[in-house]
């Protein structure tokens, strides 16, 4: 199996005298050299503001920026490039839909179905708009294994249901949700569905037209691209009906004090100068992923998931949180009564970076009746040796706290 570590310069270092083992790609992935180079190259040779200048440099920057949008469109197989709205991150993408779609569509007594396994960024924006409109957020329950029971989900729909918000893959449980089926059920009730793809995009093949969801949000920085770039995919007919989220330059057609008219998609939702360099960097990250191939990525990560699940399950007193049949390479666990923060600190001293805490999913922690857990999340650069190092690190944790 190919080792991709060499493409990621940051991984070539020691932490507390030990080689860095990065197992927190679920929080943010590391960046390959080609992405780092592309950003530097852009600032050295091609930078100017986009969609404005008549001069060569501005046209070059505009071309690179729009080419990146096109790559994103191709990568997720969206029907049109104007359905790709470039924002700051998944969080902003969800807030955009909650505020713009919600403000014009939610009324008193309406209900928004949100799954119990959501990240706070797919809960709080809905609570905010619900409060503003007098609507209500209703939790979609999950099974002990960490799955959504479609029969239970079906029963939650009523005439009051106005939106479904669900994650494609859980950042804690790793569960891959049956988005295609959930979308079909929502559509039977004429309800749109927003999918949080932050944990799915670089780990699963994502075909938007096949999923048929109405909105899909994801971040560049979890997919080997730079921070500060997110994508909102939305179906044309919905985006066209929605009012702008922010006002400013670049999102207008004509401005006067009497009346302003808005630009067409996608510009209507992209007020102000965007994060040009990092969007271009994200385009290069997509090139990198496509060169490896999504099937290769899935194969490698599923192999890591199986290996890590087997090794970790063999540790006495270790309990894995989330045992869904279909998972991305994310494993959360608790170890006896040792607190996750203490585990995180000890592992850090072994050079191993894991996440410890509530993972911005407090309702999920409550569901499993745990205050926190440790999460190891894998990327294409991880290896079986990294898993072995984690297992050895957990043995030192147990020795210290015995």
């Amino acid at each position: 199996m190919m080792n991709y570590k060499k493409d990621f310069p940051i991984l070539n270092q020691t932490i507390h005298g030990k080689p860095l083992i990065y197992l927190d790609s679920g929080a943010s992935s590391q960046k390959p050299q080609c992405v780092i180079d592309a950003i530097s190259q852009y600032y050295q040779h091609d930078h100017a503001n986009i969609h404005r200048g008549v001069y060569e440099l501005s046209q070059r920057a505009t071309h690179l920026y729009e080419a990146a949008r096109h790559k994103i469109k191709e990568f997720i197989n969206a029907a049109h490039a104007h359905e790709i709205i470039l924002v700051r991150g998944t969080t902003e993408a969800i807030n955009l839909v909650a505020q713009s779609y919600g403000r014009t569509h939610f009324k008193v007594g309406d209900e928004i179905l949100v799954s119990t396994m959501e990240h706070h960024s797919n809960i709080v924006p809905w609570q905010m708009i619900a409060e503003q409109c007098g609507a209500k957020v209703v939790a979609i329950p999950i099974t002990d294994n960490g799955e959504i029971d479609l029969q239970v989900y079906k029963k939650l729909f009523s005439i009051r249901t106005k939106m479904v918000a669900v994650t494609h893959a859980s950042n804690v449980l790793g569960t891959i949700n049956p988005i295609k089926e959930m979308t079909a059920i929502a559509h039977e009730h004429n309800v749109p569905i927003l999918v949080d793809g932050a944990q799915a995009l670089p780990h699963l093949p994502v075909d938007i037209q096949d999923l048929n969801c109405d909105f899909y949000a994801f971040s560049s920085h979890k997919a080997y691209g730079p921070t500060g770039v997110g994508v909102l995919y939305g179906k044309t007919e919905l985006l066209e009906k929605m009012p702008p989220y922010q006002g400013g330059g670049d999102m207008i057609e004509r401005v006067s004090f009497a009346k302003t008219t808005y630009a067409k998609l996608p510009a209507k939702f992209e007020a102000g100068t965007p994060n040009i360099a990092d969007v271009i960097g994200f385009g290069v990250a997509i090139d990198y992923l496509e060169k490896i191939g999504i099937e290769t990525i899935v194969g490698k990560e599923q192999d890591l998931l199986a290996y890590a699940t087997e090794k970790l399950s063999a540790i006495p007193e270790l309990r894995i949180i989330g045992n869904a049949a279909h998972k991305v390479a994310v494993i959360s666990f608790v170890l006896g009564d040792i607190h996750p923060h203490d585990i995180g600190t000890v592992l850090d001293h072994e050079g191993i970076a894991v996440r410890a805490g509530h993972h911005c999913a407090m309702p999920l922690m409550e569901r499993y009746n745990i205050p926190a857990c440790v999460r190891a999340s894998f990327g294409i650069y991880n290896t079986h040796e990294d898993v072995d190092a984690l297992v050895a690190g957990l043995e030192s944790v147990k020795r210290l706290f015995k």
Partner: protein
Amino acid sequence: MLRELYQEVIIDHGRHPRNFGVLPNANHHKEGFNPLCGDKIHLYVQEENGVVKKIQFEGCGCAISMASASLMSEVLCGKTLTEINTIFNDFHLLVTEGNPSKNLGKLAVLGGVREFPARVKCATLAWHTLNAALQDTSGPVSTEEDE
């Protein structure tokens, strides 16, 4: 360095916190919360004429936060509010600057926290909660309000 943080005393107090549980005749009570990690503490204080007679707590958190609360509840018992104020300041200096003070007694074992900036809030949660409990400010206290 790791052993300095996780000394036997800390692991022992973290595992078996002293003065754990509700204090029925408390006249000060406060909930403390660290929103970044989810650590939670309920602190109960029985105070008479400016002297703290008894501190008890309930909650969940890492070894550092539980040990800090446990040791605090032992060391501050019988102290006046003025003495507690001094110890609070000395403790803060210990975990942020590493300055040991003889006032601190066995709290000095928490000095290793200084090398772990990410864990300072774990060590100070109980203390901020105590401060708020004694001042009787309304609402729960959060580690994200001071600094």
